C-alpha cells in the first residue's frame, strides 16, 4: 500500500477542536464532517485538499477530545496519510481503528514543506519528498497493530477472534 500527494502542513499541538469543531458533532455524516475539517485553523483546507493529499504536522497531533469524528473528517476529506513528529494517544488509537494511515517521523515532520510532492511506502515506512529528493524512515507499527490493520481494523479483528472461539 502506498500514498502519493501534495503536502498540507501544520504546526505543533493540532487539537481535535480545530480538526473538527464541536459545533458540528451533532452529525455523524462523514462528508458533512469533512466539509468542516480544519476550518478553525485553516479555512482554505477544504477548498485546497485533493484526494490522496498528505497532511504533515509537528508534535502531539490530535491532542484533546476523544472524538473519532476528527480522524473521520480527515479521512473523508481525501487525506491519504498523516505524518507527524508524534501523535496524541487517543487520536493514534482512533486513526488505526478507522483505517486512517498515520506515520510518526520527527525528521519528515521537520523537513517536509507545504506544497511538496510526497510519496509513502507503508510496507517499509519510507517517506520520499519528491520535491527535494530527501527520504525519511518512519517508525514502524508494532506487530500487534500491523496484524489489526491487516485484518481490516479493530472491529474486523474482533469479529475474527469471536468467530475463532
Amino acid at each position, binding site marked *: 500500500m502506498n500514498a502519493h500527494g501534495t503536502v498540507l502542513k501544520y504546526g505543533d499541538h493540532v487539537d481535535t477542536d480545530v480538526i473538527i469543531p464541536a459545533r458540528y458533532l451533532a452529525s455523524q455524516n462523514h462528508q458533512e464532517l469533512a466539509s468542516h475539517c480544519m476550518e478553525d485553523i485553516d479555512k482554505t483546507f477544504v477548498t485546497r485538499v485533493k484526494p490522496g493529499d498528505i497532511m504533515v504536522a509537528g508534535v502531539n497531533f490530535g491532542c484533546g477530545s*476523544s472524538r473519532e469524528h476528527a480522524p473521520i473528517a480527515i479521512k473523508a476529506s481525501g487525506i491519504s496519510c498523516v505524518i507527524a513528529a508524534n501523535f496524541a494517544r487517543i487520536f493514534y*488509537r482512533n486513526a488505526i481503528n478507522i483505517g486512517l494511515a498515520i506515520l510518526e517521523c520527527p525528521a519528515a515532520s521537520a523537513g517536509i514543506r507545504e506544497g511538496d510532492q510526497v510519496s509513502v511506502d507503508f510496507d517499509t515506512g519510507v517517506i520520499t519528498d519528491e520535491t527535494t529528493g530527501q527520504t525519511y524512515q518512519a517508525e514502524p507499527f508494532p506487530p500487534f497493530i500491523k496484524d489489526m490493520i491487516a485484518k481490516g481494523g479493530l472491529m474486523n479483528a474482533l469479529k475474527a477472534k469471536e468467530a475463532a472461539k
Partner: protein
Amino acid sequence: MGMTMTQKILASHAGLDSVRAGQLIQAKLDLVLGNDITTPVAINEFEAAGFGTVFDKSRITLVMDHFTPNKDIKAATQCKQCRTFAKRFDIDHFYDTGAVGIEHALLPEQGLVAPGEAVIGADSHTCTYGALGAFSTGVGSTDMGAAMAAGETWFKVPSAIRVHLTGKLRPYVSGKDVILTLIGMIGVDGARYQSLEFTGPGVAELSIYDRLTICNMAIEAGAKNGIFPVDDITRAYVEGRVDRPWTAFEADADAEYERTVEIDLSQVDCTVAWPHLPENAHSAREGADIAIDQIVIGSCTNGQLPDMAAAAEILKGRHLADGVRGIVIPATQDVYRQCMHLGYTDIFLDAGCIVSTPTCGPCLGGHMGCMAAGERCVSTTNRNFVGRMGHVESEVYLASPAVAAASGVAGHICHPEEVMSK
C-alpha cells in the same frame, strides 16, 4: 523490577502476574462509558459489525450530557439513537435528561467506579476516576463499540511520571491550581502516553474533589491516566456509594518511574491558563489588564459541590461587574439540589448569574454560553483551544471556581484575595 500502581491494576485485569512498560496486553474492563456525542458513532460500529449482544448490561454506562437538554434536532436524534440502543439491550445505567449529570462527576457520585477497577470511556476526560485509585482512560467510539461487545480491550502498558506532593494548599488555592501548575511545568505533551502517579505526604492534604479535578486534566498533559493512592479520604468517599468488593492497589516500593516532578502545595498560587493551550500557566495576579465578558463555573472538571461552595463564598453579597455574564452549572442533579438547599443558588442569582441544569454545554462550545468574536471567558473547564467555546477569535482562560467568581466580580482576571479584601 517493581510495578507502578497503574501497571498493577492492568496486570490484574490482564490475568498476568506482572507487566512492564511498553507491553501490549488484553485487559478485562469493569465499565465502558459513552456520551451522547461518542455513543452514536460506537453504536453504528457495533451494529455494522453485526454484534447481537453486549458483554454485560450492568457494566455499560451511557450518559446524555453534552448537547442536552437537546440543543437542536440533530442532538435530539443522537440521544434518541442512544435511548433506543439502551432499551434494546436493557442497559442498567442509562442517564437521560432528568437523571443525567456530567459524566465524570456522575459516575463517582453514583458509585459506578471503585478503586482498583479498569474503566474506558469514549470521552477524553474519563481519566478522572484515577482520583479513586482506579485505572481509567479515554478512547474513541470504535474502541467503545468493540468493548461493549467484548468487555475487554488492548492497552500498551504505560511508563509513569511520579508527581511527588508535599506541603499544604493555601487559602483559595485548589486542585485546579495544582493541575494547571503541573501542566505549566511539563507541557501539554509532557506526559504523552504515560501515567501521572501522584504520591507523597501532600496527597493527604487534598480532598477527593481536588483529586478528581487533578486527574480530570491529566489528559491535558497528554497522559493516558492520572492516579492517586487509596487512603482514608478515598475510603470515606467510596463508602455508601460502592456496594461491591474492591481492591486497593499500591505501587511497589521499587516501581520504576521515568522521572519525578516535585510540587510543594504551599507554593502553588491561584493559577490561570491563558489561551490557547492549558500549559500557558500564569498567576491569577497577572490578569489585571485582561477584561472579561463571561465566567463559566461548572463542567466535569469543577462542577462538584465544593466548587459551588468556593464560588458562593466569593459571590455572597457581591454582584458581577457590569457587562459580565455569569453561567453556573452544577454537574449533577444532586449537586444542583444541594446548591438550592444550602442557599448557593440564591447567592448565584443575587450576584447576577444564571444557574443551569447539568450539561457540558459551553465547555466545548456546544450551547448555553457560546462566545462571539473578541469575547473572553474565565472558565473552570479544561480546554482553552482555539474556538473551544465559540468563535475562533474568542478566548478561554482556565481557572478555579474561586478565581472565576472573583474575576466575574472584578470584571478582569484576578486573585480571590483582591475581591475578598474589599
